[in-house]
C-alpha cells in the first residue's frame, strides 16, 4: 500500500488496484457537492484496506466510483481506476458489467434496503452467478443454496423473501451476493454498522474467514476504529473527500500523524483506559459545496497556522508507507 500526491508511480507487480486522482462531484439543487477530491491509493492482492471517516466524508462515494455505480444523473466522477492493468473509468458499460459482481463486488451499507423486497432471497444470489457464468438455472440455484449455507443460513430458506429475514441474516445474504462469484476485490461499505455487537462479531468473523479462504482483497469502509483494528492491514483516513493519512494499521494507530486522526482516537471512549473526559474534535465537517482553501481540517484544527489555509497540502511520507497530509506534522508528532 502506498500513496502519492499526483506523481505517477509505476504500479508494482502485486498492486492490482491503482486508484489515482479520483474525484466525485454531485449536483444537487443547483450546487456542486465535492464529495471526493483527488484520492490516490493502491491495493495489493490479498490485502485489506480500511477507509475510515465521519459521515459524509465521501467513503461510499469512493467505492461506488470504483464500481461505476454512481447515479448517472446527478454524479460525475473523474480519475483513473486501474484494475488488473485496465482502466475501469474508460471501460465500456458492457465490459464493466462483466467486472461488477464478478471481479469486483460490493457489500452495501444498509442491509435493510440493499435487498430487493419483491424477489426471493435465493434468486438474488443465484442471479449474480448466472449473470457471470454460463450455467443452467438449476445449477445456479444449487450454487445459490451453497452460498446461503456458506454464510450460515440454511439452504431451505432460499425461497423466502427478505422481510422474513432478520437484519443480521439480510446482511449475510448481501455478503453471499458479494462473494458469489469469488471476486478479486470486495468493497465492503460499513457491513456491520446497522447490526448489534454480537451479530456484528459474527458477520466480521464471516467476512474475515471467507476473505482468507478465497484470498480476496478488500476495501472495508467504516467509521469504527475497533472494526478497523480487528480486520484490516492498512488504513486510510478520509476527511472531506481526501485521504489525509494512510499507512499500515499499526503505524496509523500507534503513531497517528494528522491532528484529525489524533482527534478521532481522543474522542473514542476507550475500553481500556479510565479517562474521565473525552477530548472531542471541535466543530463539524466543512460544507462540501464550499470547501475551504488549503487543509479542509484547518477550521477545526488546534494546530492551525496561516500556511494551512493556502494551496494544496502535499502528502508526506512520515515512515515508509505511512503518508500524512499535514504541514505541521513533524512538530505535532514530536509534541506527543
Amino acid at each position, binding site marked *: 500500500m502506498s500513496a502519492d500526491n499526483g506523481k505517477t508511480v509505476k504500479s508494482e507487480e502485486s498492486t492490482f488496484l491503482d486508484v489515482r486522482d479520483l474525484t466525485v462531484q454531485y449536483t444537487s439543487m443547483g450546487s456542486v457537492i465535492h464529495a471526493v477530491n483527488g484520492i490516490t491509493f493502491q491495493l495489493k492482492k490479498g490485502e485489506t484496506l480500511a477507509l475510515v471517516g465521519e459521515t459524509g466524508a465521501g467513503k461510499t462515494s469512493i467505492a*461506488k466510483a470504483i*464500481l461505476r*455505480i454512481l*447515479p448517472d*444523473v446527478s454524479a460525475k466522477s473523474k480519475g483513473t481506476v486501474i484494475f488488473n492493468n485496465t482502466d475501469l473509468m474508460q471501460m465500456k*458499460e458492457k465490459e*464493466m*458489467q*462483466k*467486472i*461488477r*459482481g*464478478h471481479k469486483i*463486488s*460490493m457489500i*452495501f*451499507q*444498509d442491509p435493510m*434496503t*440493499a*435487498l*430487493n*423486497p*419483491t*424477489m426471493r432471497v435465493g434468486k438474488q444470489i443465484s*442471479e*449474480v452467478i448466472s*449473470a*457471470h457464468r454460463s450455467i443452467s438455472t438449476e445449477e445456479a440455484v444449487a450454487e445459490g443454496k451453497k452460498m446461503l449455507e456458506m454464510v450460515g443460513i440454511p439452504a431451505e430458506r432460499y425461497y423466502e*423473501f427478505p*422481510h*422474513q429475514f432478520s437484519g443480521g441474516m439480510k446482511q449475510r445474504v*448481501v455478503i453471499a*451476493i458479494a462473494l458469489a462469484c469469488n471476486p478479486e476485490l470486495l468493497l465492503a461499505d460499513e457491513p456491520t454498522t446497522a447490526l448489534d455487537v454480537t451479530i456484528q462479531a459474527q458477520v466480521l468473523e464471516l467476512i474475515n474467514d471467507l476473505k482468507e479462504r478465497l484470498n480476496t482483497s478488500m476495501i472495508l469502509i467504516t467509521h469504527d476504529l475497533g472494526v478497523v483494528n480487528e480486520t484490516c492491514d492498512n488504513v486510510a483516513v478520509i476527511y472531506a473527500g481526501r485521504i489525509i493519512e494512510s499507512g499500515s494499521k499499526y503505524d496509523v494507530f500507534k503513531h497517528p500523524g494528522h491532528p484529525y486522526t489524533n482527534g478521532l482516537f481522543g474522542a473514542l471512549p476507550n475500553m481500556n483506559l479510565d479517562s474521565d473526559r473525552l477530548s472531542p474534535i471541535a466543530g463539524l465537517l466543512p460544507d462540501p459545496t464550499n470547501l475551504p482553501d488549503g487543509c479542509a481540517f484547518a477550521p477545526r484544527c488546534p494546530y492551525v497556522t496561516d500556511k494551512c489555509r493556502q494551496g494544496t497540502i502535499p502528502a508526506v511520507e512520515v515512515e515508509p508507507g505511512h503518508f500524512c497530509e499535514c504541514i505541521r506534522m513533524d512538530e505535532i508528532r514530536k509534541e506527543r
Partner: protein
Amino acid sequence: MGKYIVKRLLMMIPVILAVAILIFTIMTFVPGNPASLILGADATEEQIRIKEHELGLDQPYLVRLGSFLKQTFVELDFGRSYWTNTSVTEEMMERFPRTLAIAGFAMVFTTIIGIPLGIFTAVHEGTFADRIGVLLCVVGVSMPTFWLAMLFVLLLSLKLKLLPAQGMGGVQYYVMPVIAQSLGGISGMVRTARASMLEVVRADYVTTARSKGLSERKVIYEHALPNAMLPIISVLGGQLANQLGGALVIEQVFSIPGIGLYLINAVNTRDYPVAQSSVVFLSILFSLIVLATDLCYAAVDPMIRAQFTQGGKKKKKGKEENA
C-alpha cells in the same frame, strides 16, 4: 389466501349495507315527489295520493328502508322502476355492459399504454422524450374529458364525418368515448408510473442489482419494475373509480344508454329504485375491484402477501401506512 378473500368479502357486507342505507336515506329526504312527477302537471292531489300509495311512498321511512334492504339483500332483487315499471335488474344488465365497455376499455388503455409509457419516461429521465412526455401528461390530465369529447365530435364526426357522433351500435360508436375517456387516465397513469419508477430507481437494491453486473435491462425489468408496480397497482383501483365516474359524464356527451345515464336520469326523476340500485350495484362492483387490486398488490408484494395469510389486523396497519 382463500380465507382472506372470504374474510374481505364478508367485510364488504356491512359496508355495502351502509351504502344502501345511506343512499336510501339521501333519496328519501331529497325534495321531490316521484308520484307527482310521474303523473304530471294536471294530476290532482287525490291522484297523487293514490299513486304514492301504490308506490308505497306513504309508509314510514323505516318500513320502506326495511323492505328495500330486504328486497335488495335477501331477495336479491333490485325492484322495478317507478316510471316504467320495468325490472331494474334486467335493465341494468342490459345497460351495464355499455358502461363497462367504456370504463373497461379506458382502463385497459390506461394500463397497457400508461404504465409502459411512464416507465419509459422514467428510465429516460431528463431526455427530450421524457420532457415532452411529462408536459403532454400535464396537459392530458388537465383536459376536461367532456370538452375533449366534444372536440373529437367536432372534428371526427362533424367535420371529417369519420365516426358516429353518438348513440349505440357497433365498435365504431365506442371509439371516441373510449379515447376521450382514456386520455386523462393514461396521462395520470404515466405520471404515477413515472414517479413510482423514479423513486424505485433510486433505491438501494437497484444499486445493488447494478453492482452485481446485471444488464441494465435486467436491472430495470427484474428489480425496479416489480417494486414500482406496487404504488401503481394501488392507484389502479382509484383510476377505475375515476373511469366509472367519468363514464357517467361521457355517456351524457355521447348519449350512450349506460348505467350512468340511467342513474343520473333516475336521480333527476326521483326514480328511487333505479337510483338506489345503481348506486348499490356500482358500489359492490367498486368494492370488488378494490379487493381485486389488493389481491394484485399481494401478488406483487411478498410482505403484504405474508400479512394476508396471517390475518386482517396487521394488513390494515400496512395499508394505512401506505396511504
